[in-house]
């Protein structure tokens, strides 16, 4: 348990460090929200300056940081100038949508990857294994944006799926079941695009981990004891392959908020992606910082989860930690 407390402490320091660092970087970038206004000839300089003072944008960096931290502790994480609302609730609402998308995609990708990896490792060298390797290579080569656009084209040409968005018009009038169906219908394309993006790397890494565990001498020894292939795979090989798989899982959890940015923008999914993009373009820096901190939180939580799972699953890690 001391080991986990240690990791928790590390995680907190990491989160604080990233927060300070991103704040500093963002604020050091030239320009601010009011630059566009300044370029507008009908607005006088004094007006711009007074507005800037009003929003506290002209204060020195540490002061702004201090105020931001105070705001963060209240759950507001500053105030968005373009959306005219506290950032905390704004980011959280969008993050929920993103999480819905990415969680489904991640679970689905893992549910496909691990069985596929086990099956192709079992059929090592045969045509199934090679076909799978060729397939994943091909998918890896195709850029995500092409996949997304291709799916959108499919939607538009066939009309089977909605071409973007999260909900249909009149969503609020539907019954609960109706809402669920509508949401599911809208989820199909973005989830498919995401899964196709995540899957190749997952399959390859899983296949490598299972393949390597299968080559281990203790598997030959177990075979010499007459243990049946199914039990051999699930009771002996997979637990030994768990270590790299858990690490990979932690990485995918950490990536839950970031993976879908492109897909969301292309397919019009109202998640963090479009929010972040707009904020950057409008130089609404506090929104950018808010999104960064949220994403980092997930990354750090993912790391912590990995460490805990590894600690539970691999006795060699428990031994090292002692």
């Amino acid at each position, binding site marked *: 348990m*001391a*080991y986990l407390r*240690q990791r928790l402490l590390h995680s907190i320091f990491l989160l604080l460090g990233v927060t300070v660092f991103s704040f500093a970087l963002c604020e050091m970038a030239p320009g601010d929200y009011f630059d566009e206004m300044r370029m507008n000839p009908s607005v006088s300089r004094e007006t711009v300056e007074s507005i800037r003072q009003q929003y506290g944008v002209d204060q020195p960096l540490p002061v702004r940081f201090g105020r931001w931290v105070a705001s963060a502790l209240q759950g507001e994480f500053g105030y968005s100038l373009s959306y005219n609302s506290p950032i905390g609730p704004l980011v959280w609402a969008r993050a929920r949508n993103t999480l819905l998308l990415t969680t489904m995609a991640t679970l689905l990708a893992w549910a496909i990857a691990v069985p596929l990896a086990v099956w192709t490792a079992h059929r090592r060298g045969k045509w199934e294994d090679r076909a799978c390797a060729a397939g994943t290579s091909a998918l890896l080569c195709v850029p995500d944006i092409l996949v997304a656009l291709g799916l959108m084209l499919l939607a538009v040409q066939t009309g089977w799926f909605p071409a973007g968005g999260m909900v249909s018009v009149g969503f609020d009038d539907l019954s609960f079941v109706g809402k669920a169906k509508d949401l599911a219908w809208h989820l199909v394309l973005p989830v498919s695009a995401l899964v196709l993006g995540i899957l190749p790397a997952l399959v390859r890494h899983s296949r490598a981990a299972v393949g390597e565990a299968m080559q281990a001498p203790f598997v030959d020894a177990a075979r010499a004891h007459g243990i049946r292939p199914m039990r051999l795979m699930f009771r002996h090989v997979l637990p030994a392959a768990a270590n790299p798989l858990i690490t990979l899982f932690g990485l995918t959890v950490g990536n839950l908020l970031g993976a879908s940015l492109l897909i969301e923008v292309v397919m019009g999914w109202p998640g963090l992606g479009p929010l972040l993009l707009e904020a950057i373009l409008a130089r609404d820096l506090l929104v950018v910082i808010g999104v960064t901190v949220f994403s980092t939180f997930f990354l750090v939580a993912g790391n912590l989860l990995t460490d805990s799972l590894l600690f539970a699953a691999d006795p060699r890690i428990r031994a090292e*930690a*002692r």
Partner: protein
Amino acid sequence: MQSNCNSSPELMRAVALSKAYAQRRGLFGRGFAVEALCGVDFEIHRGSTMAIVGESGSGKSALAKCLAGIETADRGEIWLEGRNLTAIPAARRLAAFRAVQLVFQDSASSLNPGFTAEEIVAEPLVIERWGTASDRKLLALNLIEQVGIDAKSASRRPLEFSGGQRQRLAIARALALQPKLIILDEALSGLDLLTRSQIVDLLRELQAQQGLTYLHITHDMDLARRWSDEVVAMRSGRIAERRPPSLSHAPVLEPELADEPLPVRVGG
């Protein structure tokens, strides 16, 4: 077997060598020290062969690493041909230890599997920036022939050789810098009997030709008796006794008790 013990000059002397390895429980846990060497004194004469025997945890490998300069002893001195190596500042120390070379136990993992045999043997020369590339290649091929491997196989990778051949390559590599002392850390363990015998013959031949000195570490008492001028037994980081081989009959040391857990830690 001729005893070279006291007639030839002293090559290396170790004085009160001590080394402890620090370990810790977790990042914030209490530290404790494992004392690998506790005040080891001995000397070895030029042209002789010394066998060091002992069980795992007796400090044999720690001693080998300190004598070869791979690790630095916490206390004590190492003198090579009248020069105090431990007094040399760290930056130039490794160069001074060049005259001492190591051959390890597991040849499959001590030879880089990505290099060819020739590259492996030539590597020390490359590191010392000796000669031109063709000079190095020539010397490497010479050394490979000298240890009994056909120079035509010099472009093969280690895993294509047998265990015995790999050890010969490791010996060739050790010879590259014309060392005075070769330390063999369990280098003959796990080899077939015939192969082991052939390699001992090879080493004896090289010793006669080049006046090499050997320090070999082993847990095989029969090997120690058969091939040494003096047998040194180590226990718990100290030298327990030294005898000429004819008087060394097993068992010198008590066997381990059956159910004991892994090495006892010395608190610190």
